[in-house]
């Protein structure tokens, strides 16, 4: 037993690349995850744009109380809507209408408008909780909500739904992560298996060129990935009622573009790895990092700023943006066009690099 133990350890320690991928890469990934989950007291405060068309004491009181718990920024209605609807930097904006204070002091009812992005999920819930908190704080001064003089009206700026379920927020990300796992490993390992089985020797001298053969293999993985993604989300839709958005064409386009990028990532792993064994730690690090930074596990609004700044460099970010726009914001085909184009561009770049690396390693003449 000792002999086998020593032999296996010796083999492992001789593979320097596997050593790096087994130790160094997980350290990097854990750091990313820790930053995303546990950024302590330096975490971003909830951004709440406010539109103070009232200008009176009621609005001022609300804004003051809100400011003790969130990053409150007064701005115009157009700017507030832009932040919520277009830039997705705020989950909701509060509009204090004109004459709010006057009507309140006259004992008449009025409405505070909450402009929402339901896709923001937990952040939107956070804003609503803040309003409840503020209500309690304001009870000492007055109790407008308790007396039903001021009511809250929600308006969805990004679709037709006022809320989304937690399941709808999480399922697309996890579905994409499982596709990442299956397709990245499947693609990279299948390339190296040809070498292990000896069939690479035949493929390299087959007519038509090696690149054509590699593309055939990748096409098979692409089909598997698309079917997997569709099955996962269809299951979520029919069994758990998760919405798939309003555009089947948009859904298929985004799925195809995302899976194309995933397959290309698998080819890149195949090109970087020197052996089948190396595809495991390398692929795992890629999947973990891309999942964490792409917002597959948690909303990107919960990440530190530095992670949000670099996240567009990861194609999974664009997949999640597309999925959120499609499913949570019911954005339709137009909403996924930009993410799809970006995904195709990323995929093409990774594919070219991966093919070149693999050819250089294993088919150089």
């Amino acid at each position, binding site marked *: 037993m000792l002999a086998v133990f020593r032999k296996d350890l010796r083999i492992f320690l001789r593979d320097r690349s596997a050593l790096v991928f087994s130790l160094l890469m997980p350290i990097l990934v854990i750091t990313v995850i820790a930053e995303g989950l546990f950024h302590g007291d330096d975490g971003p405060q909830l951004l709440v744009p406010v539109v103070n068309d009232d200008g009176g004491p009621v609005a001022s009181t609300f804004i003051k109380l809100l400011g003790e718990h969130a990053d409150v920024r007064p701005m115009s209605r157009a700017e507030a809507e832009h932040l919520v609807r277009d830039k997705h930097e705020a989950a909701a904006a509060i509009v204090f209408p004109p004459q709010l204070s006057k009507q309140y002091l006259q004992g008449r009812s009025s409405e505070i408008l909450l402009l929402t992005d339901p896709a923001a999920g937990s952040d939107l819930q956070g804003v609503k909780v803040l309003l409840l908190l503020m209500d309690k704080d304001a009870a000492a001064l007055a109790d407008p909500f308790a007396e039903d003089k001021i009511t809250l009206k929600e308006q969805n700026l990004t679709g037709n739904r006022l809320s989304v379920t937690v399941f709808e927020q999480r399922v697309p990300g996890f579905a994409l992560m499982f596709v990442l796992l299956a397709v990245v490993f499947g693609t990279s390992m299948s390339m190296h298996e040809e070498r292990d*089985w*000896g*069939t*690479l*020797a*035949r*493929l*390299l*001298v*087959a*007519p*038509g*060129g090696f690149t054509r*053969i590699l593309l055939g293999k990748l096409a098979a993985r692409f089909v598997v990935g698309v079917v997997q993604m569709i099955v996962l989300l269809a299951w979520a839709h029919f069994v758990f009622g998760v919405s798939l958005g309003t555009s089947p064409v948009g859904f298929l386009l985004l799925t195809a573009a995302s899976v194309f990028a995933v397959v290309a990532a698998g080819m890149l792993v195949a090109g970087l790895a020197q052996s089948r064994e190396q595809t495991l730690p390398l692929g795992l690090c890629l999947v973990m990092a891309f999942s964490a930074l792409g917002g597959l596990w948690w909303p990107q609004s919960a990440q530190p700023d530095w992670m949000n700044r670099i996240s567009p460099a990861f194609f999974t970010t664009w997949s999640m943006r597309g999925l959120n726009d499609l499913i949570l914001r019911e954005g339709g085909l137009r909403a996924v066009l930009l993410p799809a184009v970006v995904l195709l561009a990323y995929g093409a770049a990774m594919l070219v690099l991966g093919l070149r690396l693999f050819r250089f390693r294993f088919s150089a*003449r």
Partner: protein
Amino acid sequence: MKTSLRTVHVLEPLRPQLRAVSSAVVLRDLRREYGGREVVRGVSLEIPAGEIFGLLGPNGAGKTTLLSMISTRLRPTSGDAWVHGKHVTQDVDAVRRLLNVAPQEEALYPSLTAAENLSFFAELYGVPRSERAGRVAEALEVVGLIGRKDDRVSSYSGGMRRRLNLGCALVTAPRLVLLDEPTVAVDPQSRAHIFDAVRELRARGTTIVYTTHYLEEAEDLCDRIAIMDEGQVVACGSLDELLAHSRASEVIELRLQAAPATVTPVEAVEGVQKVETVGTEIRIFTARAQHALPRIYRALSGLGHRILRTRVTPVTLDDVFLELTGKALRD
């Protein structure tokens, strides 16, 4: 001391293309370098169509590298090679369509059946769908695996995998087949199947380049043999030609009824090089036993000796290799 027993064919420099077209394979000063070390050093050969051409040599002689250059897997560092008139670097795709390879290592998909493996490689090489089933069946018949065609390769013995490995090279009906040590670690039954398959290919007009380090295979199977050592072809010709030009000795071992008092008459026989005696055993070294044996018998009869047993050890390719390179083929 290395001696060239046969002049390697010198191509006519003025009309190289015409020479190239009439032969299945033409190599001219082919070289391949790895990291400053030349593993194939100026090989020039011509292989006529329909021949089983053997490449015999020890491990590391450069046989596989030479085959890899012919198959277009590797680009020659310098020199030229043609396959049925197509240049291996200028007409890569055309060359690949003319030939097929059974690599030294098995090249099979273990989770597919034999028929599926063959069908895949047939399709890869562009065999039309209408012909594919027939080609697959034919290849399976040739290698003797028709009864196991629907079994997964992972269930096959080593010998059966080797046979299927060969079948995958045949299914495309190539004009040239490159077989790299096809019988390594193969059972006798599978070896016999492989030999039969190779002979059948020749009967159909296919050219076969067969590398091996088993001299018995080269002797039994090949029309002509090139002996390679350290990247060079040191001799090339038919078996008879190679043996005829060898200065190596054949050994005649005789057991007599009584120990001879003298062997001088035996030593005087024409062609006898040396005589050794140990008791009643005599070992006679001669260039050609066939010519010397009758005279040896007469000489011993004249001395009154009765011969109980005769054994002749002929010159083999191993002897030829030893004479040319100073080492045994199995070293």
